[in-house]
Structure formats: C-alpha cells, structure tokens
C-alpha cells in the first residue's frame, strides 16, 4: 500500500494487487483501478507529450473527455492506439505506452517545437508547405512522419466482434441520478427498457460526488443509489448494460452502442468476443448523458498536475488516490468548492480557492470558509510553473469583467491545481438526433431546446444542475412519457431534495496575463495543441464562421472531438469579435461520440463472410482439375486450367486451339437464367428487346439486345421459347440481378396490364457448354437414341431431352462460333453430367476451358461482351449490329433515343477489329488510339476494348471502339505507349468464319 492511496475505499480492492507496465516499467495497482488511477497512485502525472509542441502533459480528467492521457495499449497484433487511460480498467499484465514522444517521455526531442512555437501559428501547414509546389513530395514525407497519434496493428486482429439488434420501448442513456430515477420509474411499469452506461459501474456523477452532504429524501447519495439498484435487480423488464458507450443517434430512434465485453481482461483474452455493437431501435429515448466540466484558459494551463476539479474529486473519492499534498482550486462557479472540501477532509492542505467572482454567500462557500480554507475573490490564476509537474501558481487580482489584471502578482506554491470553468451539457447525442440547441447565457451552456425525434433530455445534459431540480424534472418528464404509453395510474414523485442557495457562474473565457499576449501559451484544445493565440490569429486573418476557425486552427478536431475545448473556443471568439455566442452557433456534433474500433464496425463480416461467394455445381471438379478462378460478380468462375508446367498463355492457347480443332467444354452455369411465363410474354419481349419477338416459334432460340431508354446497351442474351406461354431468358453473369430487377420494374410500374411472371432460375440449373466440331459426337454418345442431326436440331433451336432419366434442356446456341450444345440440367445433376461429358469426350481430346479462353474464342468471332465492348455509352448501331434493331416496331425500350441528335452522329465510336503491324504485338486493353502523333495533347479517336493472342489466327488481334470506325476499314491508326508506338490497321471485328459455316454445321 503506497502513501498516495487512501484506506477504507470500497471501490478499490487492496487485497487484489495487479501488476502492469507503463512505458516498459513495472507498477502495481489494485482491482477496481483504471490505468489512470493506478498511474496517479504511483505518482505518475506525466503521461504524454502534446501533439504539436511536445509539451509534457498529465491527466486533465477522469473520464471519456480526457484529451491528454491517451496511450497505446498492448503491442503486436492486439495493439490499440489512442485509448483514454481514464477508461481502461486495470488488468493483470496490462502494457501501455505513452504516445507522441521520442526518444522518451521525460526527454522528448520534438519538444524543440515548443521553443519554436512562434513559427507554428494557426494554419502553419497551409502557409508553409504550399510552395514551391514541386517540393510537396519532400514535405509530405516529414509531415506524414510527424502526423497522427499512435500506431495501428500490422497483423490480423485475433478477437471476434459481434453485432446485436435490440428493440425496446424505452432506451435510457446514462445512469446518473436522473438516469437511475427514470429507470426506476419506468421499470415499475410493463415496458421493455434498456439502460446503457458507458462506465463499468452505474452511478454517473454519484461516483465522484459521493462526499457531498446533499441528501435525496433522507438518504445519502450513495445509499439512494444502492436502494435503486437493488430495486432494479428485481425487475425482469429492464436490461442494464455497462461498459457500453452509445456513440451514434440516427434516424427513427436508431442508435448504435459499443459494449466492451471483457473490460477486466482487456485485450489479453483472445478468441472470444471482445466488443459488441448494439443496434438499438427504441420507441422513445431518454438522454441522461450528464455534463462535462470545462477547463479555464490561462497562461501555461496545460502542465501535469492541473486537473478538472470534479475529476480530481473522483480520483480522490472513488479510487482513493490522494493526488495532492498542497492544492489550489481555481474556479468561476460553485461546484469546485466541493472538491476543495473533499481534499481538505482527506487531509490535503488546500492552500487556496481562487475565484474570479466577487464574494457572495452561498451554502457551499459558507461551508468552505468554515473549514478555514483561504478564498481569493476577484482573483485569477495567471500563470503556473513546473516543467514536468506543476510547482506553483501565480495569481493576480482582476477586474470585474475578467479582462484586466488590477493587482500585483502573488505566487502560491502547490503540487496540484484543480480548475473548473463551469459545465457543458453533453448534448452530442441530442444534436446527432438533429435536435436544436439554445444558448443560455448565464452559465454559457448550449442546452437542448427542440427535439427532432422522440427524445427527452433530463438532468445535467439538459442544463439542469441542481439536485432538487434534477429530481423534479426527471419526475415530470418521465411521468409524461409513461402517460404517452397509456400508463395512467397514479405516479407519485418518490424522491425529493432540499433547495440549496447557489451562486451564479461567471464567464471567464480567457484569463488575462501579465505577459504580452503573443508570448502566452494558453491552451484551448489540449489534444491538438491549439492556443488562444491561434484562434485570434485565425480571426485576424479573416476567418469568421466557427466552422472555418475550427478547420484552420484544428481546434476540436482531435480524437476527443473537442469535448473540453469547443465551448471555450466559442467564448474566446465571441469575446474577441464582440459577437454573441448564439449567433456563432456550434460546430456540428458528429458521430461517433467516442472512437470506435474498425473490428467492431466490421463485426462478423470479414474474410469469407465479407461477401457471398457463389459457386457452380461443378466447382469441386474445377478445383480437382487445377483450375484457377476469376471473380465475376460474386461468382467464382474457372479462369483457365494450367497443366504441369504451363503458364497462363500456354494454357489459354491450348484451350482455344483444342476447342476450334475438336472439342471444348465450358461451365456456363453462372449465366443469369430467368424463367418467364404468362399470356403476354411475346409482347413483353417485343417491348424490351430491340428485335422482333412476336413470331418466335416454340422450340426456337433468339439472340436479343436490351437497351435502357437512353438507347445504350444494357444487356444481351438468348431467349428460348419452351412452350406456348413459357420462355427462358439468359443474361450476362454480372447483370443477372439488375436485369431481373429492371424487368420487374417495367412490369409492375409501367405495364401492369401484361400477364407476365418472372422467376430467377440461375441456381436451379447447371449449364454445360460443349463447343467444337466434335460436339455432336459427344451428344450422340450420351444420348444415343436422340437425333442430333443438323436437320432435326439446327442452330438456334431447343429440345427437351431425357438423358438417363433426367430431363435436360438442350439449346443449340453458340458463344464461340463453333457447333455448340448447351445442356441445362437441374443443379443437383450438373456435376455428374459434366463428368459424363468429359468421359464421353475423351476420345475427342475434350478440353475444359475457362473464362479467358472463352473471351478469346468469342472475340475471334466478333461477339461482344456487355461491359467490355460497351460502357453505358454505346448503342447497338455503334456495335455494327443494325441488323438486330427493328425498323418496323413502333416502339421498344430505347428506340426513341437511337435517333437523338447525338446518337445519329456519324463520328460516334464504333466497333471495329484491329490488327497490329507486328503480329506478335498484343495491344493493351484500354490503350488509346490516335491518327497521328503530334505534340501533346493528341486527339484521341478511340480505344482498345479487347485484345488477345489467337492460336487459330497465329497472331494477335483486338477489338476497339473507334470514331466513325464503321467506314474506316483499312485505315491505319497508332497506339502510343510509354516506350513505343504501335501501328495498327482497322479491320472487320469478325476474324473467324464470317460466313457462319462452322456455326451452322
């Protein structure tokens, strides 16, 4: 037990010693400590270096608003930066490192910035690193090195995270006096309630104010709390979660909270759920989020050993840490007097209370005086001394406006200074919910005015600071809520407290200094190192809006989001510019309220659960046969099947050649398949495709192109008429879902008179595509009784064939230009049918080919791929497919747009083939084409869309979109590349079998 620890503290279990490390050195704390309280008990006040000037810093607070005491927790793959030590519960073996210092915290090289501070004014980076522009890359290296707080882990996070949905009648945020009273009132009724508390223990401000002599009814605050908690334990309709921070308040009372599951195990415990994101939907929300004490802005107000008064009380009362032996308290309101009393009672020499106000009697001031504590009225702390910890304060008498020093300096030796600049209601969640604030001048507080959602604010987050008022307000507002839930039974006010006489807060935004203002270091934002001077510089340079001042000076932009600094910045701007704070407004309170780990946001949606992976029924065969896979949307498609020592080029060339020479087999199961039934399918197809569909016979297939109403190609595919009122449409793999949606959209919203029903059957059928001159022989082998002759089963026709008692839909359609049969079998049979085909095709050297060979084969034949040859700006005319655009139809989707002034222009980009002069040169897809090389910029006339080597042609070839290309066959173009210029000639886009002989065999 060390001398800084008080005995008789029931929150700290001194029988359970906990060992931890800070900056590599071993210390001890006790069960119940936070890292902050344990460090302070070990007399460690210096816990970090400031961001810009690397000034020594200590804890300012005991809670979530802490700007200085942020540490890197643990190391390696479980490390977490920017953790507020005031919120980290101590656990055995904890390792924390101070941030932002080099080489160590007591001697920090970066502290030279402190001496150079005149050269680091507001907007320093904007002003300095702007020129010469070419130097930016050099600056960037150093800026990146200096910027940022903490280090992120470099390897996978071993923890798991979870998301949890919760619906309730009422959500209470915060468990201070008002939150607990509200919870008890509501829990009496038959309502589902969730109470969320960010700390690991319920009680809120009660935990730090426990020495107060105020009473609720006749109970001390702590006894009252225990009574309520005992009562709540018996209620099944209230769920209480602690160590849970509500960090976002969104539409329709949708709120997000993050719960730390093992606050006592910290990051050490692995392979279990570390944090849960609660996604809460509440009918009504009760905000009881409390308030945050403000620091005061005076010269050298940032030394270790300067702490917010109420936080000091919490360390003293709750954690039993005796912070000081000689204490000075500096305040502009009554609340800090309690801190003076608390410390006095625990044996600290309270040397003085410095109050900027004049003497006026109030209950608590009377009490302080009666204890013999010296109070300086109309005085202010104007400076402090002590490099690594405060050693003394300088005080001066000041005028009534707190703007001028009117008396000589007086030095008071001390080892701790508590400050209180008043209280700021925690309205973050209220404003996130888009509620409107109103400014209250007498204590400089923005308080909730008009809520936007079904929200009620109670207690100090509503600007209600006195105990009796909090109890009255909670009772009245919760009663209203209960009545709104039809709980009209008699509800009495159970708890009351007597009225105290309090003195008013007095504004003291900026304490004057004996020094020239330019030489002062009055910090407003401690985490981002923004001083009062910076704010004034920004104003002088013409920044008026609070949002601009914020960005220029970076005040309030650190990880604490200005919880302790924003209001002080506003006060100083208001004072300097003589504008009312009401008129300045506030900056936006953005979510999250406190930083949230990426792990928690991702939850379980990582790795294989990040997105759906779709696999075809033949997937296992592809794996067994050495396929590499390509992602097409969510689908895993076989890309190519390399043999022993083949590279990609060899494998693809082999697959392409074998298909043209004899037989190739492709898994086409991923193509979208839409089953279309109904009386009016013919009419429907006629409206959505560019060509004619009314006369398609049963058993026939037809290729169609689908446009948007802007005339641009949206999708293509073959549709087969299976029966009188039954069709099957195929779509491209990637567009299957969007085509289905668009068709459904037209049917439901534009043509409800059509009797057409769409069903996606993509996953119900596996599709085997047999391509090549020997395809027919395989079909004859697997179904010997069927007539596969050209006469009986011609190109673009369909037959339902029973093979081995399985009903197969076989289509003669082709995406290679070869004789092709596409066998659609129910998915559960697809893998065995695939193997059956492989076996039957063995004698014909059947070669499985993947998507890469498929691309080469279709490009050789001049078949387009939507999304490769088209990019949303290409019409079918541009693709040289006039033949598929009906001239006779009065209307179809996209028709009108095909003769807009722009779409009929002759120099639109049109599909052509390209042959390089050097037949081994393979153009890069996306390469730009020009007519002649001139100085930059050259006029570009087109670009390459597909480019491959063709083993069948024995040379490279490409497809391209070229301005006016349809009429430019034989023209020469250039493709300028970084290291050379490639000559190309425009050709027809069909390189193989232009007369379709192979196709129609």
């Amino acid at each position, binding site marked *: 037990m060390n001398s800084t620890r008080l005995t008789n503290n029931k929150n700290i279990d001194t029988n359970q010693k906990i060992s931890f490390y800070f900056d590599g050195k071993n210390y001890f704390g006790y069960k119940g400590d936070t890292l902050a309280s344990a460090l302070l008990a070990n007399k460690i006040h210096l816990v970090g270096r400031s961001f810009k000037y690397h000034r020594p810093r200590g804890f300012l607070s005991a809670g979530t608003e802490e700007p200085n005491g942020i540490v890197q927790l643990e190391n390696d793959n479980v490390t977490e930066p920017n953790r507020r030590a005031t919120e980290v519960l101590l656990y055995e073996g904890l390792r924390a490192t101070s941030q932002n210092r080099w080489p160590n915290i007591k001697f920090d090289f970066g502290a030279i910035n402190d001496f150079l501070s005149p050269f680091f004014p507001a907007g320093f980076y904007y002003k300095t690193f702007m020129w010469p522009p070419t130097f930016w890359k050099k600056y960037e290296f150093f800026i990146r090195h200096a910027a940022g707080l903490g280090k992120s882990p470099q390897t996978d996070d071993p923890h798991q995270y979870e998301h949890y949905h919760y619906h309730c009648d009422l959500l209470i945020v915060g468990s201070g006096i008002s939150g607990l009273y509200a919870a008890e009132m509501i829990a009496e009724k038959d309502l589902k309630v969730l109470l969320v508390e960010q700390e690991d223990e319920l009680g809120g401000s009660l935990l730090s104010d426990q020495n107060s002599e105020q009473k609720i009814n006749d109970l001390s605050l702590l006894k009252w709390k225990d009574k309520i908690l005992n009562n709540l334990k018996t209620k099944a309709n209230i769920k209480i979660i602690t160590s849970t921070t509500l960090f976002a308040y969104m539409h329709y009372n949708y709120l997000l909270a993050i719960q730390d599951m093992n606050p006592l195990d910290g990051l050490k415990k692995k392979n279990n759920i570390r944090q849960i994101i609660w996604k809460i939907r509440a009918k009504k929300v009760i905000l009881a989020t409390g308030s945050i004490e403000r620091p005061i802005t005076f010269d050298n107000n940032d030394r270790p050993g300067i702490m917010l008064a109420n936080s000091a009380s919490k360390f003293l009362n709750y954690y039993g840490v005796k912070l000081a032996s000689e204490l000075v308290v500096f305040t502009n309101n009554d609340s800090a007097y309690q801190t003076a009393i608390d410390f006095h009672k625990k044996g600290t020499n309270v040397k003085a209370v410095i109050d900027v106000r004049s003497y006026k009697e109030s209950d608590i001031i009377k009490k302080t005086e009666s204890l013999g504590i010296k109070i300086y009225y109309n005085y202010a702390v104007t400076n402090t001394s002590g490099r690594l910890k405060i050693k003394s304060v300088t005080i001066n008498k000041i005028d009534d406006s707190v703007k001028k020093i009117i008396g000589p300096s007086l030095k008071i030796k001390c080892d701790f200074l508590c400050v209180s600049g008043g209280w700021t209601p925690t309205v973050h969640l209220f404003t996130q919910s888009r509620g409107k604030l109103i400014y209250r001048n007498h204590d400089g507080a923005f308080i909730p005015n008009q809520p936007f959602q079904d929200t009620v604010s109670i207690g100090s987050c509503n600007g209600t600071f006195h105990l009796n008022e909090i109890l009255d307000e909670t009772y009245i507002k919760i009663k209203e809520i209960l009545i709104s839930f039809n709980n009209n039974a008699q509800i009495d006010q159970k708890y009351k407290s007597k009225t105290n006489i309090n003195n008013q807060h007095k504004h003291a935004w900026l304490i004057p200094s004996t020094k020239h203002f330019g030489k002062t270091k009055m910090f407003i934002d401690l985490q981002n190192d923004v001083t009062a001077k910076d704010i004034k510089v920004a104003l002088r340079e013409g920044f008026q809006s609070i949002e601009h001042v914020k960005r220029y000076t970076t005040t309030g932009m650190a990880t604490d989001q200005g919880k302790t600094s924003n209001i002080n910045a506003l006060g100083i701007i208001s004072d300097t510019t003589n504008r009312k704070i009401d008129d300045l*407004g506030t900056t936006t309170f953005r979510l999250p309220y406190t930083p949230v780990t990426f792990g928690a946001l991702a939850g379980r949606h990582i790795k294989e659960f990040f997105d759906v992976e779709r696999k075809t029924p033949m997937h296992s065969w592809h794996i067994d046969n050495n396929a590499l896979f390509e992602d097409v949307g969510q689908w895993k498609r076989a890309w190519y099947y390399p043999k022993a020592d083949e590279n990609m080029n060899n494998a693809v060339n082999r697959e392409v050649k074998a298909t043209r020479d004899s037989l190739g087999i492709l898994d086409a199961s991923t193509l979208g398949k839409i089953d279309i039934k109904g009386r009016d399918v013919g009419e429907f197809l006629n409206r959505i495709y560019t060509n004619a569909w009314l006369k398609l016979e049963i058993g026939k297939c037809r290729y169609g192109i689908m446009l948007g109403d802007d005339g641009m190609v949206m999708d293509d595919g073959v549709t087969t008429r299976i029966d009188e009122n039954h069709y099957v449409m195929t779509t491209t793999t990637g567009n299957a879902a969007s085509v289905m949606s668009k068709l459904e959209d037209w049917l439901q*919203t534009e043509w409800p008179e059509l009797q057409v029903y769409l069903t996606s059957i993509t996953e119900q059928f596996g599709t085997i595509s047999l391509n090549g001159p020997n395809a027919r022989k395989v079909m004859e082998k697997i179904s010997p009784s069927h007539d596969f002759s050209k006469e009986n089963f011609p190109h673009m026709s369909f037959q339902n064939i029973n093979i081995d008692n399985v009903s197969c839909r076989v289509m003669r359609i082709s995406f290679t230009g070869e004789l092709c049969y596409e066998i659609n079998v129910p998915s559960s049979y697809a893998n065995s049918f695939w193997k059956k085909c492989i076996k039957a095709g063995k004698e014909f050297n059947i070669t499985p080919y993947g998507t890469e060979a498929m691309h080469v084969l279709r490009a050789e034949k001049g078949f387009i791929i939507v999304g490769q040859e088209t990019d949303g700006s290409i019409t079918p005319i541009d693709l040289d497919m006039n033949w598929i655009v009906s001239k006779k139809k009065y209307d179809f989707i996209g028709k*009108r747009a095909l003769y807009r002034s722009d779409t009929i222009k002759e120099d639109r980009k049109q599909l052509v083939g390209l042959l390089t002069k050097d037949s081994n040169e393979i153009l890069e897809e996306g390469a730009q084409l020009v007519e002649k090389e001139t100085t930059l910029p050259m006029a570009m006339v087109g670009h390459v869309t597909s480019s491959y080597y063709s083993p069948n042609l024995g040379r490279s070839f490409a497809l391209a979109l070229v301005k006016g290309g349809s009429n430019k066959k034989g023209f020469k173009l250039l493709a300028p590349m970084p290291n050379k210029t490639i000559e190309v000639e425009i050709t027809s886009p069909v390189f193989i079998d232009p007369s379709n002989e192979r196709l129609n065999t």
Partner: protein
Amino acid sequence: MFIIKCPYCGEREQAEFTCGGEAHIIRPKNPPELTDDQWADYLFIRQNNKGLQLERWNHFFGCRQWFNVARNTATDEIIKIYNMGEKAPIVEIEEPTTPSGEPSIGSGNFSTSTNTAKNK
C-alpha cells in the same frame, strides 16, 4: 436508417429497400412523335426537392414489390405510402423556413439565435 412500412409486408428496416427515384414519371405512349427535348425531359429531368418528394421504393430484399412514398426529404418523415398507379396524394408539409434553406428544425450546424435568422 429509417423504417418503411411496406404495404405488403409491414414495417421493415430501410436496408431492405431500394429507392427508385422520383415517382409519377410515366413513359410516353408515343415516343416517335416526341422531340429530342421532350424525350430528354422524360429521361433525365427529375425533381430533387428539399421538402416534399414523391418517390418510388422497392422492397428489394423482401417481396420485391414497388410502391410509392411521399417523403419529406428535409426531415425524412414518411408522410404517406401508396400503391403504384395511384394518383399523387395531396400532402401539406411545413416547408423549410430558414434563409439558408435549412429546415426550421433539424439541421446539424446552426445558429441558436432566433433574431439572426430573421434579420439575415
């Protein structure tokens, strides 16, 4: 994230729905007779109101049915949900009133002084 009451399934999270843009855009019955400008109007010109917006929504991860929604885009309040093909409802909402076009309540960044708002 708001809650939408699908007319077929009931109240569901917004994540289940997709928005299909402005409602009551009817595809012309006589495209060949329209000028380029008229066709462009149908294709591209849409309202983007701050305030009342009539829009199409689809219960995409649900029943996949389309329906119409009258929504106040300044507050995200859903005022009315009605079927495809129904006439646009007559809806009165409180129009945005502040000089900057912000809604009278609910903007994120604002001055709290009522006087300034009037004086500007």
